[in-house]
């Protein structure tokens, strides 16, 4: 187990480095001079100031040299300063990460609980009215992108009925209380959870039905076991295995955030920060965020595999 863990981490390192090279390369290939972003049209510029900026951020060197320098610093935990605010990249990320984690973990938790429950419920009542109704709804759910559910939710709940605030994380005039945060959180998190509910419900239902039709479940029923025991002890644990993979695959979204929902509800999270970073061509911030995201994705994949091994005794890592 320990050896497996070490091996997986070692294998991840070249992947991580390749990702940073690709992102660096993509930014490098883009047309235009990075220094142009420092020009303020209101003030104007002189060749000397541009040269000074080029000097200060080390932009005069060839791309491979700049990449290796970036990598050398990044390994030591120094991701440089952002172009726009001038603060350390990691500090900027840290400021936003908590907000995104709050939003996304609420959505993911609600989505998992409701989605898996509905999936089990519909599978046990296959072809009933509720099954058909919920399955059709889940179809609509996966076909509706977050920017449409977001706009619609905001229009109905924040503008027409004024139940929830239309954006932000806190009231302007006072320090936020727990209730204030919750009040701002419910609408965006609720809308986000809809997509999770639809996805997880479909997977759970499919997987439950598959297990319900296996021979060992038929044997369990044939032995005269109580239906409750058949479902809870024999079916559910096996049916949830593939669902865990799907949930594990959604873990990265905890950090990436939902760019669309954060934009619509002006939620100060990672998604809006990334959008601002690419619009401002803030290279250090883009590189830093991508590295953090890639680490989280690789970690989430590893975690999913480990969880799988813990739940399913047939899988052994050695």
């Amino acid at each position: 187990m320990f050896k497996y863990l070490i091996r997986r981490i070692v294998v991840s390192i070249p992947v991580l480095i390749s990702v940073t090279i690709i992102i660096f390369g993509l930014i490098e290939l883009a047309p235009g001079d990075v220094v142009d972003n420092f020009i303020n049209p209101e003030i104007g510029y002189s060749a000397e100031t541009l040269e000074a900026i080029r000097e200060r951020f080390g932009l005069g060197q060839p791309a491979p040299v700049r990449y290796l320098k970036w990598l050398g610093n990044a390994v030591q935990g120094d991701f440089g300063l952002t172009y726009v605010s001038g603060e350390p990249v990691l500090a900027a990320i840290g400021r936003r990460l908590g907000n995104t984690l709050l939003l996304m973990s609420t959505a993911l938790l609600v989505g998992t609980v409701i989605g898996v429950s509905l999936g089990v419920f519909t599978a046990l009542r296959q072809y009933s009215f509720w099954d058909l109704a919920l399955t059709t709804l889940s179809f609509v759910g996966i076909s509706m992108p977050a920017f449409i559910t977001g706009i619609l939710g905001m229009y109905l709940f924040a503008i027409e009925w004024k139940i929830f605030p239309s954006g932000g994380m806190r009231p302007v005039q006072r320090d936020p209380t727990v209730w204030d945060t919750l009040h701002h959180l419910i609408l965006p998190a609720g809308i986000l959870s809809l997509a999770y509910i639809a996805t997880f419900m479909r997977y759970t239902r499919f997987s439950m039905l598959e297990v319900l039709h296996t021979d060992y479940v038929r044997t369990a029923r044939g032995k005269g076991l109580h239906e409750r025991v058949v479902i809870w002890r024999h079916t559910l644990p096996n049916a949830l295995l593939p669902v865990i993979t799907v949930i594990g695959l959604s873990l990265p979204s905890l950090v990436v955030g939902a760019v669309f929902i954060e934009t619509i509800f002006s939620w100060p999270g990672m998604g809006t920060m990334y959008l601002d970073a690419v619009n401002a061509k803030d290279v250090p911030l883009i590189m830093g965020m991508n590295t953090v995201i890639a680490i989280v994705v690789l970690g989430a994949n590893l975690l999913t595999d480990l969880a799988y091994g813990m739940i399913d005794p047939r899988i052994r890592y050695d």
Partner: protein
Amino acid sequence: MTSQPASPTGTPDRPTVVVELAGSRARPESLTRRTLRRFLRNRLAIVGVIGLATMILLVVFASQIERYPYEQMDLRAAKSPPGADHWFGTDRTGRDIWSRTIHGGRVSLSVAAAATLLSTVIGMTLGATAGYYGGKADWIISRFTDIVLTLPPIVIMLTLASFLPRSLVTLIVVIGGLSWPGTVRLVRGQFLSLREQEFVTAARCLGLSHRRIIFVHIMPNVIAPLVAMVSFTVGNAILTEAGLSFLGLGVAPPTPSWGNMLEAARNLQILRELPWMWIPPSIFTVLTVLFVNFIGDGLRDAADPTMVL
């Protein structure tokens, strides 16, 4: 050495093997035909086909159907709600929303179609190469796919779309160039299992070229699951185009697309006072994706031999 047993029926390429089943002397049904037959029994899938066909007709004949040119401003009729003159109402400069919606579909659907084509070609090429040849080629392609999958596609798409000029081509390249990993995995898996089967061994013994084995013998068996994958790629591409345009990274106005029409709703005043500006493109986007998903789901179930329909 590519000697072929010339069959009297005049189809030398495909030696027909007649399997005699009890009570039936018919040729066994081909995989594609069987998939199609099972697909046509799925009611939701039929709804999807009819719905999508209607959508495509509306979009293709947009210039004939529109009642006002989509770029024509009419300040006297600005901000009018849906009615007899303007079915879906008008925007702040009096442009007809119905015209803009069906014209917007042109951009959305053609970007989705082109991006899907690009993604499928890349996916099939890489997947077939990795699965058929195995070894080093497989290792390189699989590692490359892993790396691309490490970052959520939306992150790379946002990065690319913001650095490249806003145009149709950018959208197609960005969306198509990043949607292929799923296709690679599917095609690779199919090739890995199919290349070990007897008919491929037989084809190899006959001395057929790799090209011929890949395209004539293996590829037809991959088509059924691939088509289901393609329809999901189309659905995702429509949503991605709309999403990027919504964030202001798609096709630039005044050319309408469903995404940049939706972008108008980011303005609180429009969101509140002119709901007819953003409701039509939302409905068209969701319906189209829903139809495509109906088709995709039907195809996947029809192509899955373990599924009893």
